């Protein structure tokens, strides 16, 4: 018996020994082997195998000989190609891809100005077409000039550290304040006139991209105040908005400012997260539009004595819908471009961002169209267009952090929100917004900011973290309530700071310049008095409806 026990222990011991040995043998290959660097000989061999000039002269229809090792620049012709040369080329390629991506997306966003012009002018009367188009045209110049002079420095002057664009190290001075024992960024200081050290390739790319975003915010206001805004006051107001209003909030959100530090300083998720600007661009534009629309007042004839409103129909619905499509096209620069690169740092998520954008626009259209059709009886054309834009506005902030299903939900809700908001602003507030800009950009922009705090699913990982906080942005429905608080702080800042700042600034302009054209000018249409020529000189004008002429008599009495 004892012998049997000893035999069993012996067999068990041998088995263990064999097992351990086998595990050791199996584990050995799994240990990280030191990667052998390619030797100079290997690089020389590769160089020798590259197609010769004579081979390339024969043409390369298959594309297999173009773009080889012989295209890698050699730093020292005596030593030939080195590992350092190859690594430098890899780095250049990464930055080159990201520069190209960001620039092309910026060009797309710039083209959105055409879409805005068509939507806004189409929703206005023919007698104001030239004036409305001209505001959309000139706001580009006003904003660009102001942004180049000072706006960009305020927004991005302390935003160094973006590895997608080579680090942006010249933008390294953010003005801080100490509050509640923490340091918070308030405004940037480098980059005025793009002079000095900011005359830099990476800075130029980020300037172009951020500038077209800023101009989008500015052009939102022109829609809400169309058909009665004095061109002079519009010009001054736009310059000031491009110089101060937009850049200040954009710094807080995107330029290393205090909203982006809510995560690192107070543990509120990843701080205020606004991937492409539902808040920074659209809410800033929409809330400024509300502030100016309050001051400038409703168009003559918009409201009756009992407070009921009259529809004032736009002159060109085809321009409106084509403009909406142009905007939807440009949005593919707006949202996917906000990765600021297509290579490294989790930027391959651009496909997801683009699809989210597309889907939210689609469900936004459905939300508005079905709401109007089911409850009001007609699939209202202009409201359907606004539904598309509402979905796109709402998905702008969460597009980098949410799944396709959630983007559909966000867009659908935005489509309904825009219908409610248009009705509320017109019938309850008695604010006249000819194109629905306050609702599309203001209300749906705020909804987009909020939706990040609800729907962010924690799967995005842009280089390991966002706003300097490790991990992925995660909303309330995926387990992080603190992210929702950060988003609410952003919303409160938009309402409490941006709106108030815009309101006070434009109230000052009301005192010095005056926002409103005269009643005579408004009745005649702004094209001739303000711009000197009609938008459509060969059109025959129909007389205004009686309600308009009666209202005019009251207005000038």
């Amino acid at each position: 018996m004892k012998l049997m026990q000893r035999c069993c222990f012996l067999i068990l011991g041998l088995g263990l020994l064999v097992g351990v040995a086998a595990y050791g043998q199996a584990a050995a290959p799994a240990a990280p082997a030191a990667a052998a660097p390619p030797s100079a000989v290997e690089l020389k061999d590769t160089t020798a195998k590259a197609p010769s000039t004579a081979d390339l002269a024969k043409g390369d229809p298959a594309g297999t000989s173009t773009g080889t090792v012989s295209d890698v620049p050699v730093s020292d012709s005596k030593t030939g190609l080195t590992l350092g040369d190859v690594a430098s080329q890899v780095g250049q390629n990464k930055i080159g891809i990201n520069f190209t991506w960001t620039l092309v997306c910026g060009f797309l966003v710039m083209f959105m100005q055409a879409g805005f012009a068509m939507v806004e002018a189409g929703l206005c009367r023919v007698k104001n077409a030239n004036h409305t188009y001209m505001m959309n045209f000139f706001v580009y110049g006003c904003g660009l000039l102001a942004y180049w002079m000072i706006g960009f420095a305020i927004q991005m002057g302390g935003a160094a550290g973006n590895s997608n664009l080579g680090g942006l190290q010249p933008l390294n001075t953010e003005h801080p304040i100490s509050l509640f024992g923490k340091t918070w960024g308030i405004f940037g200081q480098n980059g005025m006139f793009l002079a000095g050290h900011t005359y830099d390739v990476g800075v130029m790319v980020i300037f172009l991209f951020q500038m077209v975003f800023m101009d989008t915010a500015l052009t939102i206001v022109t829609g809400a105040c169309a058909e009665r805004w004095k061109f002079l006051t519009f010009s001054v107001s736009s310059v000031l908005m491009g110089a101060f209003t937009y850049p200040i909030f954009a710094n807080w959100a995107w330029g290393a400012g205090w909203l982006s530090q809510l995560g690192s300083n107070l543990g509120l998720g990843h701080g205020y997260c606004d991937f492409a600007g539902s808040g920074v661009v659209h809410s800033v534009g929409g809330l400024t539009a509300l502030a100016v629309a309050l001051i400038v007042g409703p168009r003559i004839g918009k409201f009756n004595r009992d407070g009921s409103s009259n529809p004032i129909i736009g002159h060109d619905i085809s321009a409106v819908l084509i403009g909406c499509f142009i905007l939807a096209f440009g949005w593919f620069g707006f949202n996917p471009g906000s990765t600021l690169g297509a290579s490294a740092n989790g930027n391959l998520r651009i496909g997801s961002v683009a699809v989210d954008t597309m889907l939210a626009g689609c469900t936004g259209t459905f939300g508005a169209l079905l709401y109007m059709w089911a409850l009001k009886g007609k699939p209202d054309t202009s409201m359907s267009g606004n539904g598309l834009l509402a979905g796109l506005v709402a998905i702008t902030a969460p597009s980098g952090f949410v799944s396709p299903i959630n983007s559909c939900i966000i867009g659908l809700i935005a489509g309904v929100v825009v219908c409610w908001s248009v009705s509320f602003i017109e019938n309850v507030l008695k604010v006249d917004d000819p194109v629905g800009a306050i609702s599309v950009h203001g209300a749906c922009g705020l909804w987009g900011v909020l939706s990040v705090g609800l729907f962010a699913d924690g799967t995005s990982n842009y280089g390991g973290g966002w706003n300097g906080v490790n991990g992925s942005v995660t909303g309330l429905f995926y387990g992080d309530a603190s992210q929702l608080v950060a988003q609410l702080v952003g919303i409160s800042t938009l309402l409490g700071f941006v709106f108030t700042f815009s309101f006070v600034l434009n109230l000052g302009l009301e005192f010095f310049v005056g926002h409103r054209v005269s009643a005579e000018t408004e009745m005649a249409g702004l094209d001739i008095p303000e711009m000197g020529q009609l938008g459509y000189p060969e059109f025959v004008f129909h007389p205004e409806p009686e309600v308009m002429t009666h209202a005019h008599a009251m207005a000038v009495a």
Partner: protein
Amino acid sequence: MAATTGQGRGFTTFLIGLLITCVGIAYYSTGMGKPLLALGLVIFAVSLFGFLKIKPLEGKTPMKPGAGAMKLIGAFLAALGWVITLYGMHVVDGTTGRLILALVGIAVSLTGMLYVLPAAFNKNAIWKA
């Protein structure tokens, strides 16, 4: 009046003032920075008073003065909501408490924006005449 040469000159002066002010800020630490900043601000102020001078030429606008004090109260409430939210982040540590105070702040801001200010502007609106 609509657009005139006076407006065009005024806007040009405004832009020149802003440009020189910005140059002054950009080169504030150099010898020329401070004088340029002062010059720019003077030109800026001149442009504003130029606007004020030509403003009456616009003619009768379809607007009546609203309740000035209510406008200020509305703007104050909008800003107060923001202050409540910010201060709430400091005085409360928990997520729930901060969430509630942020919502309170937003509600106060919205009251100023959507209740007080429209009421102020609509009090003497032309369509009520």
